[in-house]
């Protein structure tokens, strides 16, 4: 089983990202589970969402404490939220920031990848809503879900032009991560 | 009779319950004071106050339970209560 924890702020679509990644994983013929850190969400407040993916049906229902992957949607959470808590040895940390991993200077036994998802989302979707772009990056960095499944899940949710633009942003983020270039 | 589930009963069974037996005071009327406002008819919880053109206001003593509401509500002070000797 692989476990993901997403950190964001209320209104940034973290819960939607977890949900759509679960749909994508299921599209990849795996079992999946997604849920928010339950609470009274307020716009702008730090929030968390979780996703599990496995070849077997998933029964465990506690929160994720030792994630394989952590995704941070908003660099302003650095220093505010302990998003590295419990990250597994050899795990992957993916942060939305214009800075390079070196510039961030976060140390530990994990792979740190960064992506300027805000810039990509602004350019391709026309709004700084980064959750779908981050999903593309997540697929590229981790391989836990496939690119086509992510695009499928997002296009199911956002039809028409919005869906197409989101798909382009996803593809761009995915390619950047696959090429190993942190933009 | 066996009970039905849910305390489900036939309707209208309150007519077999002659509440007149509960009475200690009994309403009486002074017909000359009655202005025919029908407050008594409306307010009686047992629908025991009756009216006919011939008799004016009168009471169905099978169901009148002697509560005195008719007397209290009477606009003409026409209804008074008195101790009933049984």
């Amino acid at each position, binding site marked *: 089983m692989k476990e993901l924890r997403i950190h964001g702020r209320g209104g940034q679509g973290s819960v939607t990202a*977890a*949900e759509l990644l*679960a*749909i994508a994983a*299921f599209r990849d013929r795996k*079992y*999946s*589970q*997604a*849920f*928010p850190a*339950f*609470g*009274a969400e307020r716009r702008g407040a730090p929030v968390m969402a979780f996703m599990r993916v496995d070849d077997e049906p*998933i*029964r*465990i*229902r*506690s*929160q994720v*404490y030792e994630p394989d992957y952590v995704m941070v949607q908003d660099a302003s959470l650095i220093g505010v939220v302990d998003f590295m808590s419990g990250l597994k040895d050899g795990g992957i940390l993916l942060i939305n920031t214009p800075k390079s991993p070196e510039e961030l200077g976060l140390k530990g036994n994990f792979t740190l990848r960064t992506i300027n998802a805000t810039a990509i989302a602004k350019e391709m979707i026309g709004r700084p809503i980064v959750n779908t772009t981050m999903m593309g990056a997540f697929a590229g960095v981790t391989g836990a879900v496939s690119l086509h499944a992510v695009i499928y899940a997002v296009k199911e949710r956002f039809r028409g032009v919005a869906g197409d633009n989101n798909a382009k942003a996803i593809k761009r983020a995915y390619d950047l991560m696959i090429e190993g270039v942190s933009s | 009779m066996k*009970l*039905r*589930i*849910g*305390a*489900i*009963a*036939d*309707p*209208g*069974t309150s007519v077999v319950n002659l509440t007149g037996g509960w009475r200690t005071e009994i309403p009486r009327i002074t017909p000359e004071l009655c202005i025919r406002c029908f407050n008594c008819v409306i307010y009686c919880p047992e629908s025991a106050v009756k009216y006919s053109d011939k008799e004016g206001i009168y009471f169905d003593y099978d169901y009148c339970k002697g509560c005195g509401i008719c007397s209290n509500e009477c606009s003409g002070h026409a209804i008074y209560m008195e101790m009933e000797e049984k």
Partner: protein
Amino acid sequence: MQVVEGSYAIAHAVKRCRPDVISAYPITPQTHIVEDLAQFVADGELECEFVPVDSEHSAMSVALGASAVGARAYSASTSQGLALMWEVLYNVSGMRLPVVMTAVNRAMSAPLSIWNDQQDTIGARDSGWIQIYVEDIQEAHDAMIQGYKIAESKDVMLPLMVCADGFILTHTYEPVVLAEQIEVDDFLPPYEPEYFLSVDNPLSFGCFAEPDKYMEFRYMQHEAMDRARIKIKEVADEFGKAFGRYYGGLIEGYNLDGAEIVLLTFGSIIGTIKEVVDREKNVGILKIRSYRPFPLVEIRDALKDAKVVAVIEKDFSAGFEGALFTDVKAALYNHINDLKMLGFVVGLGGRDVRADDILEIIKRSKSAMDGGITDEWQFIGLRGELL
């Protein structure tokens, strides 16, 4: 199968049961269920009278009235909302109206908490409703369909609440098989009550019962609960045949063969416990599906070879202990007397129940098996530093 939110799966199952009347008042974490149902009605997917009301008391009153005229009625609530329904819960069961509701489990205030535990439905334990507790989203979906069949069966005629953990089940997305209309229509016949209100054939429901009759009405409810024991099992079997999914009748055992320690519980926590128990030797799980009627005989039978039973629950009766723990002990008394019994309260007010908590319970059960019992009943996961 498709990945949907738990609330959606529940709403979908309710829709497939073709309710005539839905009445509910929104309250976290029940809201999504009712929103989804309102959407189905607005979109014309469900032909149904959707009655928005001013309170939960009214919601259950509307369901009562609807059921009394012969409609299939549905409601949903949680926590304080369920508490506000209290007097109507007793009226519905006393009038023997097969209303089915989803009772989303949430902590009771004060302190104010919107998070999950099971104090709310445990409080409604004695209200004369059948209570089915579910483990995952698929079971929640399926239990709604089973629920109407059990409640409306002629020899039961009791209301039924499907108790599903708030957030943990209602707000989680996972793969679920959503029932097709034709499958549900084949399984669940239309509701045809023997007695119903109509102007052509007037009746009065829940009439006045003087001391010479009241006890008999309650005794009839008790007998109906006894018959529900059989019906719940039958319907689970029928459902298994029709849909290929089975969760046990009144109870379900997991790894019970040769188990010395049995963890007995209900609700969504079972998934996490299964994950832990798979890595342990001689530890099994006894899941309670039907809390009312209570599966006395089945529990005795399932525990006859066990050495320690640990009852785990998200509720407690202040001044005593966990309600389920008390009930299990009562069921075994005079029947199995060499079994050691421990009670554990976990997860109140949404405190996450982790695999480590379950391991701790197993550890304490083992030491009770080898030695004596020091603490018969205890809280797990308490933050001592705050006390």
